[in-house]
């Protein structure tokens, strides 16, 4: 079954730690996205990719980085986590420009 996966689902870490949030999709989609969403609030695009070796920053300034070495995999890395990074991170993918986006279940990150 084609799907989009995120791990871990929940993560609690201390300030200064390096973390990587994983996102994988089995739909063969070229386009992938990372959003940050605080509880009950709107979604903010932080990174996106239109294909392998393509990555761009989104509208929300973020201290994270991403890579796209394989079509199905789009990990997000925080080099030094801070309490201000506490949020939910959602990964999404779409098959084409202006096509529907399909979201993973999200990673809820808490930085102490």
């Amino acid at each position, binding site marked *: 079954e084609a799907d989009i996966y995120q791990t871990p689902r929940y993560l609690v870490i201390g300030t200064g730690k390096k973390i990587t949030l994983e996102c994988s999709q089995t739909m063969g989609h070229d386009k992938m996205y990372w*959003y940050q969403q605080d509880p*009950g*609030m*709107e*979604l*903010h*695009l932080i990174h*996106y990719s239109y294909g392998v070796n393509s990555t761009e920053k*989104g*509208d929300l300034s973020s201290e994270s980085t991403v890579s796209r070495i394989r079509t199905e995999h789009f990990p997000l890395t925080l080099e030094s986590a801070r309490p201000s990074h506490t949020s939910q991170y*959602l990964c999404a993918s779409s098959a084409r420009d*202006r*096509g*529907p*986006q*399909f*979201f*993973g*279940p*999200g990673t809820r990150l808490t930085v102490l």
Partner: protein
Amino acid sequence: QQPVQSPQAVILREGEDAVINCSSSKALYSVHWYRQKHGEAPVFLMILLKGGEQKGHDKISASFNEKKQQSSLYLTASQLSYSGTYFCGTEGNDKLIFGTGTRLQVFP
């Protein structure tokens, strides 16, 4: 610019109707609609393309007026399962930008 949704929140009884509006200050190519239930990821509902079309999905339909840069989502005879936060997403010349969200609660 982030599209603005109205109202911010709606409370309904089962069977009642609701309209959620989405307005943008930019020329639009398409509008997406998503629903997010509490604690879950957003789920795609429908996409409307330039051309002023209307679409339906069970008892949920939407319209898109590109001249006014607006879209409306119509929920008819609401069910408990309609509860959640609805987001529009607008596309102009650039990538999708999600709106401010409308929280909808349906009570028995």
